[in-house]
């Protein structure tokens, strides 16, 4: 971002449609709206369009096939090209980079941008904030060098940084594959790739992949990359602990049972200087909840998700939600739903019809994703990895034992645990510990956990930003 961009940006922006997130869902919605002449402002926390899945390198860097990309990234490049075509000077799309949305009302999005408090006024809102990695606490997961799978993707694909020399990849779900191939592309030795699900459980995903041409091609590409580099996915294995002096130097790995519970006597030590852990994704629903959208718990889609109707509309008539915030489904789902939301908004603004092909494509992509991801729904037994002295809330340094004591003394609800020990009260606002905190403190099934408490500011911003917020 150049300095000129900053000075040109007004404190109050106006648009027909405000979009949160410049990933596939936000880009698809924006491009379709812009093509119809609708003025769109897109707020994104990153520095370039693409989102986490289609992360672009900083301006001035080009991949040119150095880090190999899966076939689906062609769709990403096309989407980015179409979006950025409309985002040029004089185009219908204005992309605000590095924008942190901290409050929202229908028709209004407040955000911090380069330390300045700004407001976007708009008619409709499309929420495409995406998702973040689901973290499962285990001993040593706070050591520097232990990062999420998504963090490794950002490092390699977003900044061209080599994560380490010897990497261990652990977790569950389809995202382990791109994590491994990114590491290989960066010249990192992948010492092991551990999938906690058993091979039998994962086989349930096969029909959904086999009957979906794009997913099938994608899966074949990943298998070829792994095979070429002699990396074998170990099913039913995970990390038990990480150790090291000031940073990760080795990991204890072992087998887990069908529920994800660690099996004693299977431990093995493996040397590594970086660990990428990816136990699936958690939908980012905070902005939607603040706007008044309803939520429901869908374990297959990663937990609490926003409820939308057949055209991506939330309980609030002017607020639409697409992609991961409605439940984890991947880039194909997000872009299809983004187009659908745009078509529904265009009917209201321009009187055009919503093509049935757009509706059926969004439904078909969502159906395919649901049937594939069912094989990787979070394993409850993985919560047994954390010992009593393992930190569960990283912001406040709260151990599992303290969270358990707080639950015993104050009650089993998420609110009671938070008040009882301050877990989940730090700057991440329970985004990291929240998806497992209540289950680890009380033993409740993760599917029965409370809906997250959403507070303003939705992300920590300076008090100056809050006090000077335009109205």
């Amino acid at each position, binding site marked *: 971002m150049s300095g000129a961009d900053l000075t040109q940006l007004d404190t109050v922006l106006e648009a027909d449609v405000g979009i949160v997130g410049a990933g596939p869902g936000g880009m698809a919605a924006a491009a379709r709206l812009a093509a119809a002449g609708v003025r769109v402002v897109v707020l994104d926390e990153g520095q370039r369009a693409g989102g986490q899945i289609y992360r672009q390198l900083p301006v*001035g860097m080009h991949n040119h096939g150095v880090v190999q990309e899966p076939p689906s990234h062609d769709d990403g490049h096309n989407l980015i090209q179409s979006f950025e075509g409309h985002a040029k000077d004089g185009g219908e799309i204005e992309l605000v980079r*590095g924008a942190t949305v901290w409050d929202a009302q229908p028709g209004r999005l407040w955000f911090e941008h380069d330390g300045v408090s700004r407001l976007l006024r708009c008619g409709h809102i499309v929420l495409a904030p995406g998702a*973040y990695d689901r973290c499962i606490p285990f001993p040593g997961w706070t050591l*520097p060098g232990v*990062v999420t799978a998504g*963090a490794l993707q950002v*490092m390699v694909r977003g900044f061209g940084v080599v*994560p380490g020399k010897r990497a261990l990849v652990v977790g569950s779900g389809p995202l382990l594959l791109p994590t491994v191939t990114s590491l290989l592309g960066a010249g990192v030795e992948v010492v092991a790739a551990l999938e906690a699900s058993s091979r039998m459980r994962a086989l349930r995903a096969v029909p959904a992949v086999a009957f979906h041409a794009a997913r099938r091609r994608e899966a074949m590409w990943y298998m070829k990359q792994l095979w070429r580099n002699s990396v074998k996915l170990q099913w039913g294995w995970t990390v038990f602990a990480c150790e090291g002096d000031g940073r990760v130097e080795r990991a204890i790995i072992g087998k887990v049972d069908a529920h994800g519970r660690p099996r004693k006597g299977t431990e093995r030590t493996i040397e590594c200087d970086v660990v990428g852990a990816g136990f699936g994704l958690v939908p980012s629903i905070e902005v939607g909840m603040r706007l008044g959208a309803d939520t429901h718990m869908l374990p297959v889609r990663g937990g609490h998700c926003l409820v939308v109707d057949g055209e991506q509309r939330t309980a609030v008539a002017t607020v639409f939600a697409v992609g991961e915030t409605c439940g984890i489904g991947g880039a194909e789902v997000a872009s299809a739903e983004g187009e659908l939301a745009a078509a529904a908004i265009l009917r209201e603004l321009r009187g055009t019809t919503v093509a049935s092909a757009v509706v059926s494509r969004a439904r078909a992509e969502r159906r395919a994703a649901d049937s594939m991801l069912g094989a990787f729904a979070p394993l409850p037994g993985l919560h047994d990895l954390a010992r009593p002295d393992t930190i569960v809330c*990283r912001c406040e340094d709260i151990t599992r034992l303290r969270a358990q004591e707080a639950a015993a003394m104050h009650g089993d609800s998420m609110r009671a645990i938070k008040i009882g020990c301050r877990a989940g009260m730090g700057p991440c606002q329970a985004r*990291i510990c929240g998806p497992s905190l209540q289950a680890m403190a009380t033993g409740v099934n993760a599917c029965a956990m409370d809906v997250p408490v959403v507070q303003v500011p939705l992300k920590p911003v300076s008090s100056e930003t809050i006090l000077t917020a335009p109205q």
Partner: protein
Amino acid sequence: MSGRIAGLGDRELVVFTFDDQEVNARQGDTIAMALWAHGQVTVRNSSSEGQPRGVLCNMGICYDCLVVVDGVTVRSCTTLVKPGMTVGRGGKS
């Protein structure tokens, strides 16, 4: 060992300091990625225990990579490097 992937193109050099050591970054780097490429994975001391912490999510969610820039606490993974910037460890020291 961390570092940079070769062959992706070069960008303008940006020099800043972290805890009094000079770090060579590139235009467009976040503080977190410049430090990681430099081999510095610890950027913060945790709030009550003072344990070493570094990047966890790398996308602005976890606030575990907090650093102090000119007296202001920021996420090192979402804050871009600027020439001459003075960056200090976040959290308890």
